[in-house]
């Protein structure tokens, strides 16, 4: 499957290896998505550069006003991190829902983003957190909003043969914010979502000020329902406005028929139910703070 497996000790070393292999090498972190693909021969690569042993990448830490998640941070770490559970609750919820404990121990949050699937649980949550992605390449480091790393369905704009995502940055939730992550699946573990919704709401004086509602898989990419968000803006925070937002989201979303995970019609109906539930729970949590 591959001829070389290299385990660099620093990102600089990793980048240098990528450059020297001229496109024949690729970054691997947990490998829980990549390895099955390579085993299936759906992809081929000559050299894998494993960044999961680079210490600084394995940290979840505060970086000024932001929370930084290194590229080696696993779903298990995020699910059990006190910092994330307090300040980015929906992300911890999303991370707990991924696959199984085995997958969560290996798979990384950044890996989920790179995989560019429309319903990757943690990516959905990261969209609602307006996460930024830090990318290291030969031309230096840059930070881009998460949605800009998606090229199209299952294709990331990040070229893992030439660049390395080193971290994700999110803003922790404020006192006037609440979040929730909800999911519809055929069983409680080891199941891809039929639908997932990540909601972050800002509530001031009983009104929704700002909200971010991301839904998957209802588009080729994780889908921010701008119409739902617009419906909520300045609206009185309560079941009526939430209901309207849910309706708006259902109209805007474009789920496809899936032979395995539900018809478009059913998923569209479920968008309504789960947007309502996600926003409702996020509101509850904001009010509790």
């Amino acid at each position, binding site marked *: 499957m591959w001829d070389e497996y290299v385990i660099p000790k620093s990102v600089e070393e990793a980048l240098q290896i990528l450059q020297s292999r001229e496109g024949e090498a690729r970054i691997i972190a947990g490998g829980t998505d990549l390895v099955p693909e390579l085993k299936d021969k759906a992809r081929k690569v000559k050299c894998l550069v494993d960044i999961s042993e680079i210490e600084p990448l394995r940290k979840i830490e505060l970086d000024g006003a932001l929370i930084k998640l290194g590229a080696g941070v696993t779903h298990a770490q995020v699910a059990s991190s006190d910092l994330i559970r307090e300040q980015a609750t929906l992300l911890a919820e999303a991370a707990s829902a991924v696959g*199984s404990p085995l997958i969560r121990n290996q798979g990384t949050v950044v890996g989920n983003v790179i995989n560019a699937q429309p319903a990757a649980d943690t990516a959905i949550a990261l969209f609602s957190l307006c996460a930024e992605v830090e990318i290291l390449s030969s031309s230096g480091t840059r930070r881009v909003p998460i949605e800009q790393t998606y090229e199209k369905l299952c294709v990331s704009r990040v070229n893992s043969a030439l660049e390395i995502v080193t971290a994700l940055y999110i803003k922790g939730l404020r006192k006037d914010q609440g979040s929730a992550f909800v999911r*519809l699946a*055929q*069983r*409680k*573990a*080891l*199941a*891809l979502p039929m639908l997932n919704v990540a909601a972050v709401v800002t509530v001031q004086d009983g009104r929704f000020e700002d909200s971010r509602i991301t839904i998957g898989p209802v588009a080729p990419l994780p889908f921010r329902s701008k119409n739902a968000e617009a419906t909520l803006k300045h609206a009185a925070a309560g079941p009526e406005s939430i209901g309207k937002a849910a309706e708006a989201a259902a109209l805007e979303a474009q789920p496809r028929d899936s*032979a*395995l995970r*539900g*018809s478009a019609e*059913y998923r569209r*109906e*479920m968008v309504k*139910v789960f947007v309502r539930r996600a926003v409702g729970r996020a509101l509850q949590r904001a009010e509790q703070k």
Partner: protein
Amino acid sequence: MQEYTIVGKRLPLLDAVEKTTGRALFTVDMDLPGMLHARILRSPYAHARVLHVDARQAERLAGVKAVLSKNNAPRSKVPATLGGPKEKVAFDEKVRYVGDEVAAVAAVSKDVAEEALRLIKVDYEVLPAIFDPEETTKPGSPLIHEDKERNIAASVETKVGDTEAGFREADYVFEETFRTSSQRHASMETHASIASFDVSGKLTVWSSTQLPFHIQRLLAEYLDIPMSKVRVVKPYLGGGFGGKLHMVVEHISALLSRMTQRPVRLVSDREEEFSATISRHASIIRLKVGAARDGTLTAIEAQAIANSGAYLSVTGPLRLVGEGLIRSYRCPNLKFQGQSVYTNLTPAGGFRGYGNTQAHFAIESMVDVIARRLGIDPIKFRLKNYKKMGDVGHANTLITSSGLEDCLRMGAEKVGWGVRDERVTGAKRRGKGVACLIHRNGTRLGLPDYSAAFVKLNADGTALLLIGAADLGTGCCTTLAQIAAQELGLNFNEINVVAADTDATPFDRGAFASATVYVTGGAVKAAAADAKQQLLSYVGRRLHAAPENLEIRNGQIYGEGIPDKGLTVREVAMEASQAREGARAFLGEASFENPAAAHSFGAHFSEVEVDTETGQVQVVKMVAVHDIGRAINPMVVEGQVEGAVQQGIGYVLTENVAVDQRTGKMLNADFANYMVLTAMDMPRVEVGLVEPVDPTGPFGAKGVGEPSTLGVAPAIANAIYDAIGIRFTEIPITPEKVFQAMRRRE
């Protein structure tokens, strides 16, 4: 009920230490010197003629030792299982489902074999395919087997009395069509076989089979070798549930071994296991029942179509569908017409329940409909109408014992029957449902149903139980050892078991039809009694005592004529093995035929919670009470029932088999997408055991392997009706189906 010292005890499995320490060897764990690895080339088309197979490049690949295809494989039909037709030529001129075998390669490694597959060039003439079991018998449908008109693989018809008259007599006539889906066994161990010819031409096969002795016979027939030159051994076996009743890999590994004169191991990968081995028959059941106002049934008429897939495999399930539908309840006028039909899908065959599972979904749902319409409590209705002891049950067999009443009573209490959980709020609704079950132990009067056993005493008074039985996780080796020890009079730790080796152990019927304890147990009990008789006769002669006044308990001999200081079995065995005169060995033996095919009964109760916003059904509690005759090992019995609940809930709610309607390819042939329940999905399960002590079973025991599956689906469907008032006649009952049904109702 008489209590025993070993039978009836919750003893741990004899092989549990091996399994928990990772020392248990399964077929896939075995390596032989010089062993080759085999892989199968499978058809990508649902229906095609195989015009030409060019394996030359594959044969030339370094490391490839043999390639099998229609160019060189035997043209005779494979006798695939007991009671099954010979219908399939291995590597035929035609492929009949996506996954059908086209060629096989034996090479020095799996990777080389895989590469060789890619080098085999096949010319197919693609034919139109048919997947719908109702469409397939219509004129104009593509013919799948040239000698089977209209794609009808088998037909069964049964008639008793006059159903027309019965319907005229009825106050109410109920009609309903039920559709049950296919299901996959999803055993954790896939089909595996190692075949090895030695220099004398003797074939040894290690296989993950539930029927070592039948495989021995079938292989001998297929390869045209005498049975004395065929040995089949079943190592540890990682689950079967009926899927390993068919010869799926053994004959291919044997052919390759014969060609290469080296051991060949063939292991299905998970995708093949899901899509290209055996599956459960999907069915369409049309049921019409006539009832009088007081709940008496006047007529039952049923038509069933069983989707057999590309090959018939066995007719049994179709028959059992009929029996389950028309012979579970007392009713004078009966009619069943069933057809097994061919479609270009994964072949169907044995799967725990074997047609009775499909039938129970239909009849137990229908009975619920009738009871409600008539305003009769569903439990009372069943008590009034269900077959009882002394009635003729399934397959013209008299019912020798029934604990059904106690099962219903116990189950109703455990589930809180009659009390609805009103605590639930918002969009959730709860409901409770019940289903009865009946299953005949064994295939008596249908297929040969007998087993044999040896009980051999060692010189130190310990014993060896030699049985051909295939323990596939059912714990039967332990259970049978308990029977042997109890009967013989030894302590449990003085008996050891050797099993499932056609060279070393006597014939066993195989692990199917829920009859290992009932039939093989009978053989074991008789063989142990025989050994005991030999021992006591020896003692009697030596001590001038009458053997009929002697008994053995806990390894000691008691009775008239035994000296005060006592006498142990150990002392007797040692003396008999060392005597200068009169020395002898003690070997108990028995061949035992299924005496009466006792019926196992039970009652399943389910509490569900339906989320009316999403259609999701959560099983909150499952209560399964089983009439087991007598539980030889209650812990083992409970384990069987609990496992059946997992399979049953999957069957009725989550285990959908998705097939691409254009290509016929199974779309979810992997564990990520075929939804077996995980530990997080299981409800509370409570198991109850009722022991009426059947007069025909060993120590009164009856079977539970399949009975345990029968009530889960209908109990849940009935509970859903209780919760939201909607009757689902098609399974699996997915959230989407529930949601749409609720929508339509509004």
